């Protein structure tokens, strides 16, 4: 075991409604969808039409500029809708399951029996490739490049985060197979990061370099881990894969067809019984949330409350998400809210009396708690970004579209999730994540 990396900066936001360690097999949903909007910088090219029959693994759409990257159906059945948004942008391809699980077969095997090219072919064909993201930019990895390393964060430190030790408890052999496959395909070292102070089942993983991280969120963010293990310089590429997705890769290739089952945590203050559900990639959340949500105006978030996507209660799980958060909407007025003592108001500053109760779990809502202003306070962001990066200076370089300064200040090492806490603590209510994504898009555009 290598030594523990101690993350000092950051913030654990304690919220009510963490999922309990019980696993419920969700009533199988009828509708599933793959959403092109889950992928940054993707121009989808549709490959199916409404009413087409699809099998598990049939390609629904592909990347227009990298056609080998396909996005496939997680279930067998029929395409029932292609929902579009503004300017006919494809929002989601919806499939109705026929419950038969007809699968598209691929060559089955393990890292020992398949060649590197065959593994890559399988991942691309089954639609598992999009699980591999690349740094810089946090976009789907380019199959042509060779990464310097693959990084897998074995835990999540975000508010209400799912416990991967629980999720992966019974998938360890698949996880190991996934690691072996990724290592063989890329020819690059695989790094797995584990939380300190927890007896993670992932400790037994072989064929990977294990690292231990201690400290508050964002210690579990893979970007922070890369930064401390082997920072990305200009011209370098690293790949990242989520832990549950590694297991899915292992399981699917072993069996020779896509097995898109996954375990998702349902959490948040507005959930009656927060727990884990066994479901399928892209499933409608309707069955999961049915009769398990408290009354009132709530927000459903696919992902965590810092970086997730707002969805409706009949929409679908995000491609990369293993968490569904449900929190109250904050669309209310509060008389003299800024002047009250604020005993129950969570804040990193001690201007609210909530500092008296540091271990309390809060029922946070979606109110901005103030209006957007220019940068006034300084040093706030530094306290929550555990990287050798100056957050405000980087954001300002992005706003000025100064490519050189962005490079120097570390644009290659960050994606928006690393700045989510900046956004949370910001007195001026500046939307840092959006700025970072715009900066990344600018870099992609300028450097391609």
């Amino acid at each position, binding site marked *: 075991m290598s030594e523990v990396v101690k993350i000092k900066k950051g913030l654990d936001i304690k919220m009510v409604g963490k999922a309990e360690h019980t696993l419920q097999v969700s009533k199988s949903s009828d509708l599933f969808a793959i959403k092109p909007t889950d992928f940054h910088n993707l121009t989808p090219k549709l490959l199916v039409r409404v009413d087409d029959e699809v099998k598990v693994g049939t390609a629904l759409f592909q990347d227009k500029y990298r056609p080998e990257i396909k996005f496939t159906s997680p279930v067998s059945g029929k395409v029932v809708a292609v929902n579009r948004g503004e300017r006919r942008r494809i929002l989601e391809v919806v499939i109705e399951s026929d419950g038969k699980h007809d699968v598209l077969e691929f060559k089955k095997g393990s890292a020992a029996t398949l060649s590197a090219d065959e593994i890559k072919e399988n991942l691309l064909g089954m639609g598992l490739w999009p699980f591999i993201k690349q740094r810089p930019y946090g976009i789907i990895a380019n199959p042509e490049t060779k990464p310097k390393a693959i990084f897998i964060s074995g835990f999540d430190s975000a508010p209400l985060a799912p416990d991967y030790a629980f999720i992966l408890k019974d998938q360890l052999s698949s996880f190991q197979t996934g690691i072996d496959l990724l290592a063989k395909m890329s020819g690059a070292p695989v790094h797995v990061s584990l939380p300190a102070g927890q007896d993670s089942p992932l400790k037994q993983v072989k064929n990977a370099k294990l690292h231990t991280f201690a400290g508050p969120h964002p210690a579990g963010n893979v970007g922070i881990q890369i930064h401390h293990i082997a920072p990305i310089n200009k011209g370098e590429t690293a790949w990242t894969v989520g832990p549950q997705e590694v297991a899915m890769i292992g399981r699917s290739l072993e069996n020779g067809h896509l097995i898109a089952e996954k375990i998702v945590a349902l959490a948040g203050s507005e959930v009656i019984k927060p727990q884990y559900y066994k479901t399928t990639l892209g499933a409608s959340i309707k069955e999961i949330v049915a009769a398990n949500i408290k009354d009132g105006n709530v*927000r459903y978030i696919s992902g965590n409350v810092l*970086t997730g996507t707002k969805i409706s209660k009949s929409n679908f799980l995000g491609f990369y998400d293993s968490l569904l958060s449900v929190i109250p909407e904050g669309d209310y007025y509060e008389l003299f809210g800024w*002047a009250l003592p604020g005993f129950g108001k969570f804040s990193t500053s001690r201007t*609210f009396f909530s500092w008296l109760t540091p271990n309390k779990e809060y029922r946070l809502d979606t109110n901005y*708690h*103030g209006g957007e202003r220019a940068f*006034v306070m300084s040093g706030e962001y530094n306290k929550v970004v555990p990287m050798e990066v*100056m957050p405000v*200076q980087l954001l300002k370089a992005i706003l000025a579209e100064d490519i050189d300064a962005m490079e120097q200040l570390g644009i290659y090492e960050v994606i928006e999730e690393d700045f989510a806490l900046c956004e949370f603590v910001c*007195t001026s209510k500046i939307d840092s994540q959006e700025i970072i994504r715009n900066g990344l898009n600018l870099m992609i555009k300028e450097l391609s």
Partner: protein
Amino acid sequence: MDGLRKIVDQLKPTFSKGGKLAKLESTFEAFETFLFVPNKTTHVGSHVRDYMDLKRTMVIVVLAMIPALLFGMYNVGLQHSISIGETWSIMDSFLFGLIKVLPIIVVSYVTGLGIEFAFAQVRHHEVNEGFLVSGMLIPLIVPVDVPLWMVALATAFAVIIGKEVFGGTGMNIVNPALTARAFLFFAYPAQMSGDKIWVEGLSQGEGIVDGYSGATALAEAAAGNMQNLPSVAEMFFGTIIGSIGETSTFAILIGALILLYTGVGNWKIMLSFVVGGFLMGTLLNVFATDTNPYMSLPAYQHLFLGGFAFGAVFMITDPVTAAQTERGKWIYGFLGGFIAILVRVVNPAYPEGVMLAILLVNVFAPLIDYYVVKGHVKRRMKRFAVKA
């Protein structure tokens, strides 16, 4: 609460786009958000946000200034009573001061906020809270005898030239309150310096005790009359002559505790400012000559005199005009304190150096940051070289 909300909701269409009074939308919004934290919910990025906002920040700073303000009011009465040779009760002194100081506060706020509202309206922005603090700072750093029209003019100058031309709160280069003070100092030197303006009624000169001077401790020291300096206890607790809110180091320290504890004020800047001032004071002690007795004033007493404490706690720490980088803050604060005492003692033209020193380092803050960021980039590059 519901009733009040109803009234606001009824009024809202009138002030919104298309309404009769749409021209006053920003003004209406300012009052609405003053009453109610808005119902706006997050739509991009993080779904939850900290309860902290700029209003809260500014209110904490104003709160931190209250001890200095209350003591300042009392001291106005106290100094006046001394000048006319009477002994007043604490309450009498305070009420006298209240009546004298309140108009200055009102003029400062009305002028400044009026201009802020107008600019917000023209720009279709929300009204920024920055002036809540500046509007209180200005009365605290002027002499009590200042004519109200001068306060209005200086405030207008500070808000327009010091802040709005740069784009409003968050964009300004120099501290607006100090800009106002500097404007007074340079535009009306005859009225704003000398020994007559620091005590209420002295410039009219009615009923003043024979031989009463009204000079501030700094003026006495600059003139070399070291024997006329108040005792250290008087300096610290602030029963001395000076600008309204800056005499009592003790009251200012209470404010400092509030700012530091809540994290609104930056401890690095405050500390380094004090260290800088103390070090300069000590240096002067070392090189003190008989011809300039001021130089041998014990370094720690410099910290109690004039606007040093007030500057350290409320002025140099303004996050907008200070250095933004952590390392830069140390350099910035230190330079501020260092130069403040240097100007104070060595330059005979200005009895107080704090204002000018802070304005000067305000201007240098971006340069300091520039070099700190450059160093940071260098360190980043080195990191790659080692690990790669």
